[in-house]
């Protein structure tokens, strides 16, 4: 016989039964019953954030670093609308999030009640799915279904909007029963025929290239293992999107670095010149493709994706395979071995020779002088001093994010958390809070810019409250650097509103919050300062003053092709076409 309990208790029970240990939230009038139920139990840990956007990003950090769904609890109206940016971020980066929002009592819905917002309406386009639960008897099932929907197929955020009267009402609780959803059954196993064709095509390739993305990370650690195995048996060079970093180790000799707008010269040229492109879990995003009509013109393209709508959306492919990366990779390896398929070694070594020539351009090189810290150098030193530790990295959005992607090298999946699709400034600090909660003993660093970090700086207070020793490593160039870079490229160097005016003293700010502040501006002091940061067992804000005017290179300017990269400031003049200027 199922137990009767209140809606609020059902919410808590369902979360516990789904294996949730931590939720991120902020109380308010329309969720008080749930907060009351939370108070009267000790299985779920609640982390009080300082802003609801922070709650969602923290849940994202938690989810990305663990592979488990992140859970958020916020109130109606502003609580829910503040969560919208985080939900959209999770949708674009395919992060499983369950977001429970309080709602005004059902009889007041539609009356413009205090703190009422049409949350299912507002979140419909920024969630994978959402629910408004008016009937307490349907609450338990919806909770379980939400977990199924958020974590199966292409993961994403799911909102459950619960009116206050439903939280008070009593109903029967039903335990999770693996029924999932009555109709939603995403395809996990790829089509056999297509996989065979893919193997055939790869074995005949002269200039093959793997282009992998966040789908491998989302698929779980098995997919990364299989990817490594596939590279090992074929020897095919590999590049990855921003979201996919770590799936293949950066120390691997087949690794070309990241591709795309700020990808490496070798990765982008290999994309342009390859004859067989194997896209696994990436989506031909515009940061990757550059000019569509000049994108990898001579290649046959294989595209493995769990989401059918990714196929042929931006780029027409020759062999689409709909399925989970892990399943498809496993099958590809099995068929490859069963057929005793062989890569064309002669062609491959010639191809690798070509790639080595591109590599020789050393596109990520920079000049470090004696007086001012170059941002790339800061990342490089941070990497050298933390690579042997159990380290997780999050970032904000902008130049520092690209430098981190270029100069911090990842060996394992789930170690790199960044806002890729939405490009949300203010992501990194709250994400670090979520990561540190999931990995209390690990070193968690938010590589930040001084402008981005101000967008959710309040979350340092959350870190203090829960004694989360996150490290906020700010590359402080006193500019919204990426904006300044684009203004330099596209708008005649008129730096409209992109100077970080009236910055706080980050050291004092850290101290005011109850953390530790460190500042450095001399290259020869950097190592010691980083070591100090690592050794402090409390939240740290590290204000690293770097060269103000450095730009992020290499770069594919808007509207250009992969083989039209800008390698440095000398290439910039007149590099962006009129058509390119309207692109973002």
């Amino acid at each position, binding site marked *: 016989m199922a137990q009767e309990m209140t809606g609020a208790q059902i919410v808590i029970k369902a979360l516990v039964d789904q294996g949730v240990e931590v939720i991120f939230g902020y109380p308010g009038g329309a969720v008080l019953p749930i907060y009351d139920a939370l108070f009267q139990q000790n299985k779920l840990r609640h982390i009080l954030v300082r802003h609801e956007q922070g709650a969602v990003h923290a849940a994202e950090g938690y989810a990305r670093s663990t592979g488990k769904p992140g859970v958020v609890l916020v109130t109606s109206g502003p609580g829910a609308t503040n969560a919208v940016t985080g939900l959209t971020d999770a949708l674009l980066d395919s992060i499983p999030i369950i977001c429970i929002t309080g709602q005004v009592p059902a009889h007041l819905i539609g009356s413009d009640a205090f703190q009422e917002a049409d949350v*299912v*309406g507002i979140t*419909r*386009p920024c969630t*994978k*799915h959402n629910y*408004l639960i008016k009937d307490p008897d349907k609450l338990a099932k919806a909770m379980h279904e939400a977990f199924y*929907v958020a974590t199966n197929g292409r993961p994403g955020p799911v909102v459950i909007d619960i009116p206050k009267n439903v939280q008070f009402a009593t109903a029967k609780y039903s335990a999770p029963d693996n029924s999932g*959803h*009555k*109709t*939603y059954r995403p395809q996990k196993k790829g089509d056999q025929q297509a996989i065979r064709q893919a193997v055939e095509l790869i074995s005949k390739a002269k200039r093959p290239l793997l282009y992998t993305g966040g789908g491998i990370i989302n698929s779980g650690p098995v997919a990364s293992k299989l990817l490594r195995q596939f590279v090992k048996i074929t020897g095919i060079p590999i590049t990855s999107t921003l979201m996919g970093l770590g799936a293949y180790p950066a120390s691997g000799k087949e690794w070309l670095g990241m591709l795309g707008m700020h990808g490496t010269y070798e990765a982008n040229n290999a994309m342009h010149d390859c004859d067989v492109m194997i896209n696994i879990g990436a989506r031909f995003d515009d940061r990757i493709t550059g000019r569509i009509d000049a994108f990898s013109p001579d290649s046959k393209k294989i595209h493995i994706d769990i*989401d*059918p*709508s990714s*196929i*042929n*959306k931006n780029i*027409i492919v020759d062999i689409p395979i709909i399925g989970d990366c892990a399943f498809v990779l496993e099958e590809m390896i099995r068929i490859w071995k069963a057929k005793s398929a062989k890569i064309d070694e002669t062609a491959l070594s010639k191809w690798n020779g070509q790639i080595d020539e591109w590599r020789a351009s050393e596109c990520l090189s920079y000049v470090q002088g004696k007086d001012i810290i170059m941002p790339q150098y800061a990342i490089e030193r941070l990497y050298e001093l933390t690579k042997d530790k159990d380290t997780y990295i999050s970032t904000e959005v902008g130049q520092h994010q690209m430098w981190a992607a270029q100069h911090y090298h990842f060996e394992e999946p789930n170690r790199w958390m960044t806002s890729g699709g939405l490009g949300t400034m203010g992501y990194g600090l709250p994400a670090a809070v979520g990561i540190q909660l999931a990995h209390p003993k690990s070193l968690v660093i938010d590589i930040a810019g001084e402008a981005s970090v101000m967008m959710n700086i309040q979350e340092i207070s959350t870190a203090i409250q829960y004694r989360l020793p996150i490290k906020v490593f700010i590359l402080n160039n006193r500019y919204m650097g990426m904006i300044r870079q684009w203004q330099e490229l596209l708008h005649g160097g008129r730096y409209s509103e992109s100077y970080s005016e009236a910055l706080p003293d980050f050291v004092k700010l850290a101290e005011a919050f109850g953390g530790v502040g460190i500042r450095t501006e001399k290259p020869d002091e950097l190592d010691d300062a980083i070591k100090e940061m690592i050794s402090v067992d409390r939240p740290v804000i590290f204000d690293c003053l770097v060269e103000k005017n450095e730009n992020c290179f290499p770069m594919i300017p808007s509207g250009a092709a992969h083989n039209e990269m800008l390698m440095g400031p000398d290439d910039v003049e007149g590099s962006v076409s009129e058509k390119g200027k309207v692109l973002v």
Partner: protein
Amino acid sequence: MLHSQNIESHTLSVLVDNEPGVLARVVGLFSGRGYNIDSLTVSETEHQKHLSRITVVTTGTPRIIEQIKSQLGRLIPVRSVIDLTVMGPPLERELALIKVAGRGENRVEALRLADAFRATVIDATVEHFVFEITGRSNKIGQFIELMVPLGLVEVARTGVASIMRGKEAT
């Protein structure tokens, strides 16, 4: 194939769980992603199974039409998306109620044309008719055109309902 830039009209039959907000999801998808809706009809079709059928007539390049179908398929309450135009040609019908007011020769002519188009009179005074007409959209369009000079007052159209020929379910 997909490379073609030709704009085509397709009739999509979308079977959905009849739950609150499902129409908003479908319509929001079209507006949010910049697709066209030329006609839309929606109604519950199987009460026991809580199923509704949404019939959308949309236009786009073959590539856009493919995207529309897979984007629709991504919505959780969508059970199936059938492109009737690809399977077809399907049977398509629309119903319209058309109000025409006038006296004398115009009135007689309106009635004569209605007869030719197999429209029926469902309301009348000495000064007006309301015609009910069913048929393919272009037939209805043609009838409405003819009514314009004869005193057309207003029109209500249902949008297209569509189904495949033959004994099988799609």
